[in-house]
């Protein structure tokens, strides 16, 4: 809680102290002094910074994040539209990263120093080091432009309409409405950006899983599990992966927070109307309420994810459970 307040203050003050004049950024070339005064008054920019901060807190408690200068809508409304789009993308991408990253890491560790291990390690290194924007452009060129396997951006085909708003995630809403064709269309649009976002985390998870599993395999209790004559599957999943899970979960949590908040490039390249795109547009136009809103969202995501990881840690490892 105290952490959240601190984050609000820091993000608010920082965004308002950056050099640059929001009025000039928004009013086009050569606005008249009176136009600037009207703009500043309307957006509360004429008051001293501490007063602005105080007002921001008061409004925040009322659920009011201010009004975006860019869209003209309340920031809270803009965020509520952008968050589900990003969440849909982030969840899909983290599921992809988790399945392949943990799978690859486990296989690499079990086949340590073999050809498979070597290939998977190279693959994870590539995943971690290739810049996302480059990967996105290459994928766009090959899979959309050349091969036409995936659509080139946005959340739905122009011929389709958004399903009735329930969660804001098109795939889920389409399923809830029983609109199968819309579901497939939304999924089709979702997959390529999700895979591109997943690449780096997949590489990261492969490396972490591999080293966590290798460390666990050194332990006496794994040799003891083998000495009990347990099947290979039980030893690998019930004992080795089980013990490696807490450290893997930590990485997954951080990776999820990253894609929730850091999909700026991918969202822009794929015209994905999520937090990344919203944040990018508001910073290029110095849309201060929107920037503060996005910063607040990012802070909340990290606080929540860390909390969830801590709770999961207790569930997974009986030694850290409070009794």
């Amino acid at each position: 809680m105290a952490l959240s307040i601190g984050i609000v203050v820091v993000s608010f003050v920082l965004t308002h102290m950056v050099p640059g004049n929001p009025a000039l950024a928004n009013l086009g070339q050569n606005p008249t002094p009176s136009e600037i005064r009207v703009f500043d008054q309307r957006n509360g920019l004429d008051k001293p910074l501490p007063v602005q901060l105080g007002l921001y807190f008061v409004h925040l408690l009322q659920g009011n994040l201010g009004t975006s200068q860019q869209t003209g809508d309340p920031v809270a409304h803009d965020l509520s539209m952008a968050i589900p789009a990003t969440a849909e993308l982030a969840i899909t991408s983290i599921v992809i990263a988790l399945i392949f990253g943990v799978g690859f890491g486990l296989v690499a560790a079990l086949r340590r120093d073999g050809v498979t291990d070597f290939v998977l390690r190279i693959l994870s290194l590539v995943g971690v080091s290739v810049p996302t924007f480059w990967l996105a452009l290459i994928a766009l060129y090959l899979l959309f432009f050349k091969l036409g396997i995936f659509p080139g951006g946005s959340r739905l085909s122009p011929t389709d309409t958004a399903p009735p708003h329930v969660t804001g995630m098109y795939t889920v809403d389409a399923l809830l409405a029983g609109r199968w064709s819309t579901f497939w269309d939304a999924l089709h649009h979702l997959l390529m950006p999700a895979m591109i976002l997943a690449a780096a985390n997949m590489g990261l998870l492969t490396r972490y899983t591999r080293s966590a599993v290798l460390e666990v395999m050194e332990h006496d209790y794994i040799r003891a599990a083998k000495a009990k004559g347990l099947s290979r599957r039980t030893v690998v999943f019930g004992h080795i992966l089980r013990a490696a899970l807490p450290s893997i979960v930590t990485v997954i949590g951080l990776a999820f927070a990253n894609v929730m908040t850091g999909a700026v490039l991918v969202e822009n390249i794929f015209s994905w109307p999520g937090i990344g795109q919203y944040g990018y547009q508001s910073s290029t136009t110095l849309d201060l309420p929107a920037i503060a809103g996005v910063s607040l969202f990012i802070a909340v995501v990290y606080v929540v994810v860390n909390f969830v990881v801590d709770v999961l840690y207790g569930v997974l490892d009986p030694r850290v459970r409070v009794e």
Partner: protein
Amino acid sequence: MSLLEVENLRVHLPGASGPVTVVDGVDFAVEEGQVFGLAGESGSGKTMSALAVLGLLPRRAQVEGRIIYRGRDLVALREREMRSVRGREIAMIFQDPMTSLHPMLTVGRALSEHLRQHLKLSRADAQRRAVELLEEVRIPDPEGSLRSYPHHFSGGMRQRIAIAVALICNPSIVIADEPTTALDVTVQAGILGLLDRLRQENGLSVLLITHDLGVMSSIADRVSVMYAGRIVESGATAEMMQRPRHPYTEGLLSALPHPEAGDERPLVAIPGSPPAPTDPPPGCRFHPRCTYAVDSCRTQVPQLVEVDARRLACPVDPLAVKV
């Protein structure tokens, strides 16, 4: 015929410059209902010999020789067949109970998972048997303990649980690798007494591995002393403790404190240190540290020969020299 016969066992581990021979032609036999001891310093190859019996050597280790258990050669068994021997026919107790139990699995799971796999018991039957075993190893509140985790117990209690885990499938042989070394001296006697009692009640055979000749003399029927991968002397425990005939056995015994004797006899350390397995000395491997060494010791490998109901690999009999 013996229950378990190991013939001319050799174990080579992969090393930086070619395979390293850590067990070099070892023979021993475990008789039905007896405790057979393998003694020696760390690095003498005793643990590797035991792991070879269970087929649990590190990856890429090579095994030569025969390990005959009830007429079957375990070295030739497939992994799948070997799994039905591990835990079911031959079980193992490890040195450090703080690390040999999986920290995230309950005691109930540790006791029942291989029991259910090997004997196809129902959950309820497995639980009943688990409670029985915990009672047998004198764990207070057996039923409640099933839901507890290893970190809820002290070292001594954990070793009792590990013993229960090893014995729950009624194996005919238990390999106990330094079962008391990691425990307080006061707890050691309790664990040894427990092992001895269980052996008598269940007609169990024990392959006891320890560097502690005091532990050895308290429960082993026969003992073989290993040095640098080879057996140097074997015979009935009491006989050997009173009249060691190999200079190394004698050295080990002189290094053992005898508080009950109460005399001023100083502890005598064996000079030097054991050879690295990568570079064993020629001839008798003990000759660089041996006070009785003669010229032939430096060139000829002494063979284990039968001398007065004992097997001895030394041309110089310290007893004869002293007399």
